[in-house]
């Protein structure tokens, strides 16, 4: 059985003083219901979560007490992807016909301050100044550029593309284009990555209405089908965030594992997708994740950026809504934002940032601590 996405809704990303994360989640749900033309009472199940803005199932207090089963997902950066996988299974199994997935968050300013104990690491790791995701991304970029002969100038090109795309997205946080000079000249946070090469923890909410594929036309004239949704954790030998040590041998990353499995389950290859959203916690990871997800060869990225191939009018537009760099990263909502954007693009409803040529297949990829990746393929 196919599973269709028939409604999408979001609360704009950014900073929203006086608006709780839960309110942003409820706003997204109402928008998605309206988009699908259904009411909350029609929804048979819900799955969702946030990392630091409360329990998703408490949204029933605001949305309506209908006794529906509502499962909370608390799975770090893969919260949205994991919620979607659950919803997909619940519909595919025949248990339910119509459900909703929601993710929202609201983080304080500045870098994430994760407690090492939650990952089984001693307090010395935080006290000595090693418990920062930004260091991992700096070291990953340093090693990746070195291994594949990519110049540092590629990093600013990624960020400039993100802020340009964000300027065309009314839901984005950062909507002012920036030059490569401004990006390179901002504060060096974690060499070789400057302030504007990093995304910031932020706020926002996204919801998706899903249903059995054979009922999709009841709700929309432009259904989009979820062909695969896959989650993977670490293999022995992968290089991941918050690792006090690494094995001498290198293994495939969770992103490589999840993307391959997602393409295989969808029955299409990376060359057949018309656009992609990949995790761009920083400029370096957009570059490395493109190749890890099979969307280009290792080392090819500098030429793709130079020629504009990953821009909106290019051969493979990437992070068309501005990605994490322009939208920020509210953990629970971030992966669902990518799917919201892919659905909008496949519907031809992405406004001034619409990818030309009636795109028919789109890919999304999330990566996060402590080494998880969730990937999806959707098609018209």
């Amino acid at each position, binding site marked *: 059985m196919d599973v269709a996405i028939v409604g999408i809704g979001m609360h704009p990303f950014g900073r929203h003083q006086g608006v709780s994360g839960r309110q942003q989640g409820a706003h997204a749900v109402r928008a998605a219901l309206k988009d699908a033309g259904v009411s909350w009472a029609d929804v048979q199940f819900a799955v969702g979560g946030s990392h630091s803005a409360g329990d998703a199932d408490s949204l029933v207090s605001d949305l309506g007490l209908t006794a529906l089963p509502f499962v909370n997902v608390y799975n770090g950066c893969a919260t949205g992807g994991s919620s979607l996988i659950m919803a997909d299974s619940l519909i595919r199994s025949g248990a339910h016909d119509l459900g909703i997935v929601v993710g929202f968050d609201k983080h304080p300013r500045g870098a994430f301050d994760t407690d090492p104990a939650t990952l089984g690491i001693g307090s010395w790791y935080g006290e*000595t100044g090693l418990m920062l995701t930004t260091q991992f991304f700096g070291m990953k970029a340093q090693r990746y550029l070195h291994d594949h002969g990519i110049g540092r100038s590629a990093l600013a090109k990624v960020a400039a593309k993100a802020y340009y795309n964000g300027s065309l997205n009314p839901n984005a946080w950062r909507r002012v284009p920036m030059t490569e000079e401004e990006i390179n000249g901002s504060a060096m*946070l974690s060499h070789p990555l400057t302030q504007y090469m990093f995304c910031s923890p932020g706020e926002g909410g996204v919801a998706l209405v899903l249903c059995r594929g054979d009922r999709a036309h009841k709700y929309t004239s432009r259904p989009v089908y979820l062909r695969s949704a896959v989650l993977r954790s670490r293999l022995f030998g992968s290089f991941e965030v918050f690792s006090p040590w690494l094995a001498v041998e290198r293994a495939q990353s969770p992103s490589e594992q999840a993307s391959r499995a997602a393409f295989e389950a969808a029955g299409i290859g990376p060359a057949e997708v018309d656009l992609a959203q990949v995790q761009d916690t920083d400029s370096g990871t957009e570059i490395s994740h493109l190749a890890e997800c099979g969307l280009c060869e290792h080392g090819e990225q500098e030429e793709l950026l130079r020629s504009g191939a990953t821009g909106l009018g290019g051969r493979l537009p990437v992070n068309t809504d501005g990605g994490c760099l322009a939208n920020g990263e509210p953990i629970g909502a971030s992966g669902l934002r990518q799917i919201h954007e892919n659905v909008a693009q496949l519907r031809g409803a992405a406004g001034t940032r619409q990818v030309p040529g009636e795109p028919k297949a789109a890919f999304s990829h999330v990566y996060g601590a402590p080494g998880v990746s969730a990937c999806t393929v959707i098609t018209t």
Partner: protein
Amino acid sequence: MSVDPRSSDEKAADVRKHRLIDEGILVEDEDGPRLVGSSCRSCRTTTFPRQEACPKCARVDMADSLLPRRGTLWSFTVQGFRPKPPYAGPGEFVPYGVGYVELPGVVLVEAVLTENDPERLRIGDEMELVLVPLRRDEDGTEILTFAFAPAR
């Protein structure tokens, strides 16, 4: 096995001068500091810090292992802003290097680097383990942690 060769009296005398941030991960012998990891008796995988079970073969058969002092720089960055608590470094923030050092054939260890100028660091540089001050306790005891320094 005991990983600290000093007698308890020696340790008691020492504590007034300095103490190590965590004696479960780091010890000092006559030649200097050593990191303490675990090595799997079955598949030889080494972890840092110590673990009860092997993350590769999953057997619960790990032995304490003193890691080599020297290795090569595998990747690096420089921490450019003061981390939020629980970071307990000096009151006046100074950017610090962070890197992975490959202890040949054994394990890669993440550590603070004594060098904070990225132009003076290169992947492949020879590095060696040293102790560096992190902060002082209320009673004045200096707390030492480990770092890697460019090898002389």
